């Protein structure tokens, strides 16, 4: 037990330490989550696994926004849950300020949770309908009483409401009395209550009207500057991700296909999946629309319970060759671009990475 409490203290000390801007605050290494598939009535036997997340690695730097995009079912939300420790990782590590947080429990985990918070996708299910707004935003202080003394909490909750652009007098209202956008602001206020360093946003605007999306995105941008936050922004809307992100990672079938700055990904994509994804983005300019190339992928996404050998994208890729079915491509700067100072020189998990412009330059 002594060993454990020492570990607790080590974690507590480590997470107190400040991280300079531009230094990695969260390092994800080979993160995996396999959900077992079982068969049998009395004695369950594992017959396979859904590889929801299958070896994802990336860094999150202090003060930046990392966007993660990908289609439905590619494992984006599972990554968010793993980072929050809402699901236990099957393998791999998440280093928060150098401490692996995937195996933490008890006090150490609670301490880490103060600093990593989450904003959920659906504002209609993420707020308890039987609690008032004051109780919802005040709950973090009940769980972590050291953050705010009891007499101070009401004022703090009202402050938070003000910060997210809601009337502080709404403190006694119930969630159903608010619109979707207002509810999402309440969710953001709850996430901000403990003054975290990292906020993981799991599709925070995809359930909102387009007009409200912009307000919430702009609020999040403002809060990032104000509170020096680092965001992991998960979404499937490419234009919103581009708007808010400093760097973008593209996921396909539980793996990271390509990662780089937003300019590198949007204007110089080298992975064929990214190129196909970007070619599906609606183009508002009819002139440009007529001249752009559409990449139409054939077939469906393979089942994550039985992913293809080698490169997971090879079954739908127009460049696939023998090598793709035998060798898993690693996420690294492709050989041909190494040592060059061009935007295409960014990490891409493809054997035949090459630049291809698909989005008309605006």
């Amino acid at each position: 037990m002594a060993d454990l409490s020492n570990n607790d203290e080590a974690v507590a000390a480590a997470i107190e330490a400040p991280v300079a801007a531009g230094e990695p605050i969260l390092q994800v290494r080979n993160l995996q989550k396999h959900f077992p598939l079982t068969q049998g009535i009395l004695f369950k036997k594992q017959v396979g696994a859904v590889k929801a997340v299958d070896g994802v690695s990336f860094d999150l730097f202090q003060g930046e926004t990392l966007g993660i995009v990908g289609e439905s079912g590619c494992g984006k939300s599972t990554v968010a849950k793993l980072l929050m420790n809402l699901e236990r990782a099957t393998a791999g590590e998440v280093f928060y300020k150098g401490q692996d947080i995937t195996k933490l429990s008890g006090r150490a985990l609670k301490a880490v949770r103060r600093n990593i918070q989450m904003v959920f996708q659906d504002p209609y299910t993420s707020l308890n309908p039987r609690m008032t707004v004051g109780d919802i935003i005040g709950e973090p202080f009940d769980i972590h009483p050291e953050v705010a003394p009891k007499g101070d909490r009401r004022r703090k909750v009202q402050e938070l409401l003000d910060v997210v652009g809601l009337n502080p007098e709404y403190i006694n209202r119930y969630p159903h009395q608010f619109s979707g956008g207002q509810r999402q602001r309440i969710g953001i206020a709850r996430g901000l209550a403990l003054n975290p360093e990292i906020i993981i946003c799991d599709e925070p605007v995809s359930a909102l009207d387009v007009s409200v999306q912009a307000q919430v995105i702009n609020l999040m941008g403002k809060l990032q500057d104000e509170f020096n936050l680092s965001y992991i922004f998960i979404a499937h809307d490419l234009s919103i991700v581009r708007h808010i992100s400093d760097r973008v990672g593209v996921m396909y079938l539980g793996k990271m296909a390509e990662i780089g700055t937003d300019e590198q990904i949007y204007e110089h994509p080298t992975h064929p999946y990214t190129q196909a994804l970007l070619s599906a983005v609606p183009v508002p300019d009819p002139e440009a629309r007529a001249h752009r190339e559409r990449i139409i992928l054939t077939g469906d996404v393979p089942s994550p319970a039985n992913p293809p050998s080698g490169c997971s994208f090879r079954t739908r890729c127009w460049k696939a060759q023998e090598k793709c079915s035998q060798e898993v491509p690693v996420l690294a700067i492709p050989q041909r671009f190494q040592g060059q100072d061009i935007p295409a020189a960014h990490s891409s998990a493809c054997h035949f990475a090459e630049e291809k412009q698909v989005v008309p330059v605006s």
Partner: protein
Amino acid sequence: MVRRLARPAPQPGLHRLRPGHPLPGGHRHLAVPDRLRRPLDCDLSKAQEGSQPGHPFGFNGQGCDVYTRTVYGARASIQVGVFATLGVALLGSVLGGLAGFFGGAWDGFLSRITDIFFAIPVVLGGLVLLSVVTSATVWPVIGFMVLLGWPQIARIARGSVITAKQNDYVQAARALGASNSRMLLRHITPNAVAPVIVVATIALGTYIALEATLSYLGVGLKPPTVSWGIDISSASQYIRNAPHMLLWPAGALAITVLAFIMLGDAVRDALDPKLR
């Protein structure tokens, strides 16, 4: 009526059957009797007679006043209904709720146990289990109903806890570092309790009816206990000659069951913040 029911039970001596003894207070006005007529003061010469002054519900097969017996019968019947429902709801929702929340081996074990209990026929089980009981109180019957009734509530509680558990606000509380007890008490229970309340209040009526069934079969409550079930079962054989003997206790039973079901709806509405 509630105030009168709250009075202490009559002395044991009052229960002695005294045939031929005239009913005291029979001449008094119905609405304001200064004390309730004794249920077992009966006059066999008036057996099965209909309504008459002072005896608005008539007499039963033993010549006892049906009004008195119906009022007294509420004691045992409501006791059985309320306590059986409370026992079933508490036991079932705690076991089922914990199974739903924690899942795993305990959940599997509990689900199999409920399957076993569902396989036991209620009436047959009652005949077997209650025939060995000699006590004339309501408690063996209540115990039997709790024993056979909890799996129904356990299943519903388990299902609604599993539904509530998957809501993002529970995940959000977990992400904030909330303990299991906080998640259960603050987030899951208030959002999972509504179906349990609705089913429990409906079950309350069926328990009162089940008490009648068991009494009819001779294994439920036994005389000298007075209950609607006993009266309904003994009156049912005279339904052609003297329907009033069946009508009054059965009507009281039906109204009580309906009242509890409406109470359940009202409680559910009162707990719903959207209707505030």
